[in-house]
């Protein structure tokens, strides 16, 4: 299996798709090879300054703990644990998080072993090897191993409260299908989707997919922002939280960390959307659901 990089510098860095392409070999994707870490760090662009948020080791420690904790179980279970803690450790703005080359560096320079451990598929029936999809290293925000966890935490948190993130990440279909849709950019919508999972209104992957498709399709003609308004966004709590990184302790391993002290999503807005989505879901086609199963 791909192992932990031999050389880990002190700070995170950036690596572009073009530069990364050279290191994403078939051997790496099949989990047979390591990333040549010294060569990689020679081409990576080091991040200037001494911002504590960009120290590499707190992130690497977190990833080590995730692997230790979930080694004997299913790797997918690690998502719900790692997402809030990665988000709280990095304390990025969205502008910073939209920098793809940071996530690519994390996958290649910080923890290629984690990418392989988490995303290597089972060997196929014909005997061919399992593989990690390339986009787990260099893909869009809802595919890339670390970007998807960070964005899940960002989009599903309720202000400082990461509990909805754990719920959303606990279901791979929610994580995979909702994260790529624009509808979750509206906080009450994201929390209403989580609310339906918590109530047990949607359980299986097929149900989750049917729900997110129905909500997304309806958003073409409905303005959820008017039906269920959110509070006005205020950037100050985030800036304070980022400034607090200097004195922050390592992310708690057993309890959930706390996010930026932003205002919570109005409960009334979430309630309205839950009721709304339940109706939509009742009429939505679910693969494998026959009509007499409907209530």
């Amino acid at each position, binding site marked *: 299996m791909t192992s932990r990089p031999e050389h880990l510098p002190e700070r995170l860095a950036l690596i572009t*798709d*073009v*530069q990364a392409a050279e290191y994403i070999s078939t051997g790496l994707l099949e989990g047979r090879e390591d990333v040549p870490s010294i060569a990689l760090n020679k081409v990576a662009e080091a991040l200037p300054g001494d911002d504590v948020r960009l120290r590499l080791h707190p992130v690497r420690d977190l990833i080590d703990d995730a692997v230790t904790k979930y080694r004997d179980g299913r790797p997918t279970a690690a998502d719900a644990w790692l997402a809030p803690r990665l988000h709280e450790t990095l304390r990025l703005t*969205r*502008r910073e998080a*939209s920098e793809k080359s940071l996530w690519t560096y994390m996958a290649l320079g910080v923890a290629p072993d984690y990418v392989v451990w988490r995303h290597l598929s089972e060997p196929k029936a014909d005997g061919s090897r399992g593989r990690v999809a390339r986009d787990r290293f260099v893909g869009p925000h809802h595919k890339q191993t670390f970007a998807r966890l960070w964005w899940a935490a960002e989009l599903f948190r309720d202000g400082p409260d990461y509990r909805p993130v754990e719920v959303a990440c606990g279901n791979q279909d929610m994580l995979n299908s909702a994260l790529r849709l*624009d509808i979750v950019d*509206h906080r009450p919508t994201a929390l209403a989707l989580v609310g339906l999972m918590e109530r047990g209104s949607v359980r299986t992957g097929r149900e989750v*997919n049917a729900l997110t498709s129905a909500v997304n399709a309806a958003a073409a003609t*409905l303005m959820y922002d008017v039906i269920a308004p959110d509070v006005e966004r205020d950037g100050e709590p985030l800036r304070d939280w980022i400034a607090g990184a200097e004195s922050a302790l390592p992310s708690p391993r057993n309890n959930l960390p706390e996010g930026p002290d932003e205002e919570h999503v109005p409960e009334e807005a979430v309630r309205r959307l839950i009721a709304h989505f339940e109706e939509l879901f009742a009429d939505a086609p679910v693969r494998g659901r026959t009509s007499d199963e409907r209530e």
Partner: protein
Amino acid sequence: MRVYPYPRLTGAVTARVTAVRLRGPDDTREYLDSRGYSVVEQVVALGTAERADWRTARLALTATVPAREIETKGHWSDIAVVAVLTEGATNARTVSRLTPGGESGREWTGEIELDRDDHLDRASLSVHVVATVGGVEGRIIASTDQEWLIDMTADGPLRDRQLDVSTVSFARGAEWLRSFRDAPWIVDTAGRMPTVRLNSDFEGLVALVAGQGSKVESVVGEMLLAQMCADVWTAVFHTAIGDLEIEDDGTPLFPPDWRGAVLREMLPDIVPGRSAEDALREVHIRRTGEGSWAELQPRIQYAAARRAEVPKALAGTVRDIERLDQETHA
């Protein structure tokens, strides 16, 4: 055209930015000079701010809605007019309700604020009219045709983007450039925006492109620039089409950033007479092997050359050369 299961407005909804107020640390304030935004281009160029350290930008907006139509047709109630500011790259979405002003009810005004930390490159601003229709609340009954673009860094309010050209020594530059040391230029599509990297080791090239030399040099320089542009369009098209998101049912999606903008602009020349979505699907099918990808290449080349204005530059060059010839023989 899309069909909606409820009545929508037929009259146009338009929006214009009327003022931009920036706020920095310690509550410093600045009004963006009116040359920093353009009603014709529908662009706000926040790079024109005098203070580089602004944190939030508050845009004052006026939207015009077909008030008479709303009143006479009478299908709609609980009318709301909302401004929506989004950016795909940062998943940012800000919504603000406008309020009706004046007696006619046609003009709605309000403000929408964006936080710089939530944006990367270009945000889009659109205005929607929302109403209760047939007992269903929150229906979008009309939207602005063209969105405003809020550019975080541009130093002029232009919709079309300037080609970014930078000069660098390939031999002594970044590791990956060294393998291209003999090339006069390469197109780099890895970043936020595509850039042309000119090889400063290639003697005379930089002066040629800068067009500061003799008449002959400037004639050739212009041609060269057009050619580089065409290279950029081609490279960007291939980057974008090679990295499409595909829906579960096989429908390819337009990328949310400039790659999507490039595809939308080039596709009408590549697959003429089709909607953008259909054209994208067609090109995607051809590329993934179920059609003739090779036969599409001349069309891609044609679209790129047209965007880069190669024919125009070439015609100009031919004319200039003739003129230069006449001058030398005169």
